[in-house]
């Protein structure tokens, strides 16, 4: 008899996002030695056994969708290739830009590339299974289990399991807060009358998926932190300000018009302990709005700080609309609720996700810390964009996954040039002091 898993609220929501993105989360890690492939496969197979959603197929039942657990072989999940150094980028891009259909049997795939005594690990997973926050946690747990297994012979079974329900966000709130949060029916979707978009070309048949990246050197990271501290801004605020300003410059928006960027927020901030929850999605959006471009980037930064502080003061930050979504999915058959939710939900045209620090000590395998790496969100379909930011050893990687043309790629790279220029403006004082 087939084994079924319940499709949780965020599974259904991310399935609905199929119109806006390819739902893949990407990660790339470089190690300066050859990892133990058999151990890697054993650890991953054990994790697949503990979290069966990764080897399940999503069934879009019109009444109530669900996951069906499928049989698999770990060799179908992990592909190992020995390659020449010059083929590395091509292989990585080809792998990361693929899309795993939710109806397929596997929701995660790994490519291990061995080249000149080094190893590159690339992983893609379906966002319906877990978000960037949990994926980071998954990777850290993976590395810990791998090390314990290889170095001490401990079986790799230490993966947290439990409920994947969105309701876990309420479990650590006080009784009254929890009750109040479960009555937040307000729809906080972006309703920007100017509907500012990233200046892409019209979609065409030649569009393909690509991941554009830009590295911000490690020396600049403490400067961004320091400059932000002086102005009461976080690194996230600094990046968002640069994002806004660069967009106004790139797209030529009217400087007196307001613009909104949706910033992803991890709802686990409301949870004290996640050890009894399964890997899932717990992400919402915070709308960061600037009323105008600002005379200079510092004024834009002030607007950003004001906007984000306003959100941070709200103790129910990110929890709005969840009861409404849940209600939508409960009272109607899935096919109907999808259509109704699509009407009420407006996917952010401009978004940012600060995935945060990839801690090298926690991602080390057999004492070898990753030399390089990054993580990014899904490939967005035009006109939607998502800027992902991760940092490793203080080196920040900005990435944008887009389905577009070569010209769009050039536009994204021009945007990154502007981002760099504007970040430099924000840290100009600190650079001078150096």
């Amino acid at each position, binding site marked *: 008899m087939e084994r079924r898993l319940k499709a949780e609220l965020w599974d259904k929501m991310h399935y609905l996002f199929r119109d806006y993105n390819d739902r893949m989360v990407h990660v790339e890690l470089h190690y300066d030695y050859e990892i133990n492939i*058999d151990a890697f*496969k*054993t650890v991953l*197979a*054990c994790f*697949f*056994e503990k979290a069966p959603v990764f080897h399940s197929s999503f069934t879009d039942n019109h009444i109530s969708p669900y996951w069906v657990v499928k*049989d*698999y*072989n*770990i*060799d179908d999940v992990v592909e190992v290739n020995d390659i020449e150094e010059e083929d590395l980028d091509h292989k990585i891009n080809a792998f990361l830009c693929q899309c795993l259909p939710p109806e397929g049997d596997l929701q995660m795939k790994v490519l291990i590339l061995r080249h000149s005594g080094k190893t590159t690990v690339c992983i893609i997973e379906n966002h319906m299974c877990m978000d960037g926050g949990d994926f980071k946690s998954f990777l850290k747990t993976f590395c810990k289990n791998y090390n314990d*297994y290889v170095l001490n*012979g401990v*079986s*790799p*079974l230490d993966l947290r399991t439990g409920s994947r329900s969105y309701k876990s966000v309420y479990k650590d709130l*006080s009784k*009254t*807060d929890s*009750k*109040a949060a479960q009555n937040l029916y307000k729809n906080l979707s972006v309703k920007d009358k100017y509907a500012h978009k990233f200046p892409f070309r019209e979609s065409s048949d030649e569009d393909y998926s690509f991941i554009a990246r830009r590295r911000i050197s490690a020396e600049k990271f403490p400067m961004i932190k320091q400059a932000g501290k002086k102005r009461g801004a976080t690194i996230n605020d600094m990046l968002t300000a640069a994002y806004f300003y660069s967009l106004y410059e790139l797209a030529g928006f009217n400087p007196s018009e307001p613009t909104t960027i949706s910033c992803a927020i991890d709802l686990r901030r409301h949870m004290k302990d996640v050890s009894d929850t399964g890997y899932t999605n717990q992400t919402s959006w915070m709308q960061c709005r600037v009323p105008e471009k600002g005379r200079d980037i510092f004024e834009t930064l002030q607007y950003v700080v004001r906007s984000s502080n306003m959100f941070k003061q709200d*103790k129910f930050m990110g929890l709005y609309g969840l009861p409404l979504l849940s*209600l939508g999915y*409960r*009272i109607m058959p899935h096919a109907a609720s999808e259509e109704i939710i699509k009407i009420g939900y407006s996917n952010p045209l401009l978004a940012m996700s600060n995935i945060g620090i990839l801690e090298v000590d926690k991602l080390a395998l057999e004492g070898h810390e990753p030399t390089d790496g990054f993580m990014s969100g899904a490939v967005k379909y035009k006109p939607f964009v998502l800027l992902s930011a991760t940092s490793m050893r203080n080196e920040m990687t900005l990435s944008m996954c887009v389905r577009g043309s070569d010209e769009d790629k050039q536009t994204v790279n021009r945007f990154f040039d502007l981002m760099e220029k504007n970040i430099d403006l924000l840290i100009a004082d600190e650079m001078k002091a150096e």
Partner: protein
Amino acid sequence: MKTVLGFIDEAFRQIPETDKSYKFKMQLVSEVTERANELTHRGIKDEKVIEDLIISEHPDIKGEFESVLREEKRAKRRRHLVALNILGTVVFCLAVLVAFFIHLFKVDNGLSWIILIAGAFALSAYYTFIGCRRFIKKRGIIFHITTRLQLAFTIMLAFALAFFIMLFKFNIIHSWLMFPAGAIAVLACDGLFAHFSHQRFAVFMYLAYIPLAAAILYVILAIAGIVTWQTGWLIIPVALIIDAVIIAVRLLIGKKENEEVEEDSVWNAD
């Protein structure tokens, strides 16, 4: 597989040896063997890992066995209850039919069919009680539509029975007013059901039902001559005032809860 089998043996030392425990143990051994084959097929080569993984999937064998026993008992009880209900229903129907025919042939006062209606009412009330008891603790938005319809049907049957008795036994002219009165009872019971089953939107049901019930009550009382048509309509504005009071009370409760939330957050702040 030695470790897993040893683990199972160890666990079964705490379980008294019976036919059931032996059967469960054999089933478990077969399950873990199958699981080990599955894990090997999936690509885990290290036997120790396979064994540890299987053991981690059965942390409390004694508990598993007890839960199987409990489930068996529950299923048996359920089967007995279903059989008893079917048998009881058949016996009851036969008894009603016998009573009906005896009354028809012995008394024959033209009221024998009331026995049939009373029987149908009793049966419907019994199954409504079972349905309500089963579903009342569950929450939902469009909640328990079958049970609610069953409840409404039972109430209307009871009022129909009352109507026939009033009309044919006591010859009361306005007996038919039992039907609109039944509608009021249906609304009241539906509202109470929503309240006791803690439906989130129960308040909207009260707000809709109260004026509706008041309008029907006005018609009943006016036809029965208890109030006049000219003054009786005041029942409807009174119902609207009750609605307003309910809204005000709900808002006050909501405000109080919000204040409690504020206090809590101050208390919980770092």
